[in-house]
Every structure is written in structure tokens, then in C-alpha cells.
């Protein structure tokens, strides 16, 4: 049964190491001036770290497809929230006299 997959200990240590390296990179990158790229790099690393936790620590890698769909739906809906929300705030003032 898929829920009972036992992953080797070494895999957990590798993921742990990757998460620590990611944290170090995030802090180091924050002190380097990359302009707007600072935010992109910071969020990309956070996204990779979160994916590692979801896939390996939370066992989604070995879960049923139904669990995959439910988990992904949560993050997808979050992107809809941010996407539609910011579609308003980012575009205010694009047409003269519409600010506020």
C-alpha cells in the first residue's frame, strides 16, 4: 500500500541538508544587491524548500494521486488569491484619473 512506504534514513538526511543549505543561501543572497531579483531568488529558494518538505517529509511523493490533487489544489487556489488580488492593486492608476 502506498501510504506505508518506508523511505531510507539517508534520504531524510539529504533533504535536511538541502533545507539547511537553502536557508544559508537565502540569508547570503539577501545581503547581495540584485535589484528586483532579490525577491525572486528569495521566493524561489523558499518554494524549493517547501516542495522538498511536501514531497519527502510529508510523503506526498508516495501518496495517492487523490492526495496529490488535494495538496496541489491548495497551493493553486493560493496563486489565484494572489493573482486576482494583485491584478487589482498592481494596475491601479494605469488609466488617468482611476487612482484610488
Amino acid at each position, binding site marked *: 500500500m502506498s501510504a506505508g512506504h518506508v523511505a531510507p534514513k539517508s534520504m531524510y538526511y539529504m533533504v535536511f541538508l538541502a533545507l539547511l543549505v537553502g536557508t544559508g543561501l537565502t*540569508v547570503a543572497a*539577501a545581503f*547581495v544587491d540584485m535589484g528586483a531579483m532579490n525577491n525572486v531568488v528569495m521566493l524561489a529558494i523558499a518554494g524549493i524548500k517547501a516542495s522538498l518538505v511536501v514531497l519527502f*517529509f510529508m510523503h506526498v511523493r508516495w501518496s495517492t494521486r487523490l492526495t496529490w490533487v488535494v495538496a496541489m489544489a491548495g497551493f493553486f487556489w493560493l496563486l489565484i488569491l494572489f493573482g486576482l488580488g494583485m491584478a487589482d492593486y498592481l494596475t491601479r492608476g494605469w488609466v488617468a484619473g482611476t487612482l484610488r
Partner: protein
Amino acid sequence: MSDGHAHAEHLSGSTYGSPVHVDGGHPAPGHAHHPKLQHHFDDMGQQAEAATLGMWVFLVTEIMFFGGLFMAYLVYRHASPSAFQEASHHLNVFYGTLNTAILIVSSLTMALGVRSAQTSAPAKTQVMWIVITMMFGAAFLGIKAIEYTEKFRDHIVPGPNFRWEGLYPHGAEQFYSLYFCMTGLHALHMVIGLGIMTWLALTALRGRYNADYYTPVEVAGLYWHFVDIVWIFLFPLLYLIGRHYHAA
């Protein structure tokens, strides 16, 4: 042909019409049942999958719960980016980094705890991993308490006594409102997590969990890792905005 026949044909053609075993099948009507198997499940595998799925549905509501705060953060940071950078500089990067590392270690020990239950390790081993995880969780909250104390001491807690020396007192107060809401809600989840883990340790001590049945350990692990993920995003968004301006 009558309407009734067409209707029946439609039903039989549908995938919803046929009985489906979610786990792909250990239908064991003749077997002796595991004492933890509830009567509405076919077998232990199906029961474990249902529990995992149910926990994920709950975690999706949690994603949206925190998501509302992240959305508010986006809107206000977009409205006053300079104020957010100035305000973020008053957070302690060392404490933030240390707490991130502590939570990652606690996630590792939690994962190893779930694995120990999965592999029918002795009850003592299972309890050891759970207690180690709780110790790191408590350490996280301790450091958070030190940070909060410093903020109260420096009068940068939003409210009538909020004082700000910089250029953007209004935007800084907005930043710290979000800081306390987001880290406060996260800390509350940590406290609830410690409560769940206490119960888990007590039940594990009685030798309740082994390879056949470890659902509570698995589900508590899912919760713990989720709270870790929230912090993985909170840390850079709150502590590390525009740090390079002061690096020079």
C-alpha cells in the same frame, strides 16, 4: 425504448456507478480484523489513506487561512515598499536564521519519528524522537519570546505606545501589525503542535504504534511539517527585505 432504460444505460456507463476500492485491493472478508480497523473501511491501507487525505483537506484550509495574511502583506508591502524595508531592519536576522534552522531540525526529527513508528521501532525510540521534536519546538518559541520582549521594550509594538525613529512611522506600524499577526498565528500553531505532540508521546509510550497502525503519528507529522513550511516563507518575507542597502 423507455426513458428508464436510457437512464440505466447512462448510469452503467459512468465511472461513478461501479464500486471502486481506493487502495487497489486487499479485500479480505475472511481475515481477522486489526483491532484499529473501523467497520466502514475495507482494510488498514484504505483507512490510513482516508486519514491522510482528510488531513490534507484540513491543511488546504490552513493554507488559505495563512494565505489571507500573506495577501494582506503583499498589498501593504506594494503600497509602501520603503517603509517595509526600513521596518524589517529592526528584526534580528540572527534570531530569524537560528529559528529557521531549529524548525528544520525539528522537521527532520519528526520525519524520523514517523519512520520509527512505520518500522515498528520500540516505543522508547518513538517517544525519544517525539520528545526531541518537542524540545526544538519549545526552543523556537523561546527565541520568539525573546524577540517579542525586545519589540515591547523598544516600543515597536503597534498601538498607542508605538514609537518609530525612522522616516516612515506609519508604514513601519503597518509592517509590525502584520509581523505580529503572522508570527503570532504561526506561534499559536506551534503551541497547538506541542499539545498534539504531548498526546502523541503519551500514546506512543503505551506502545500504540507500529507498522500496521501509525496513522496518528503520520497525521501529526503532516501538521508539524506544514507549520515548518509557513515559517520557510515568513522568514525571508519578514526578516530579509532590502538587507543589501545596509550591507555597504
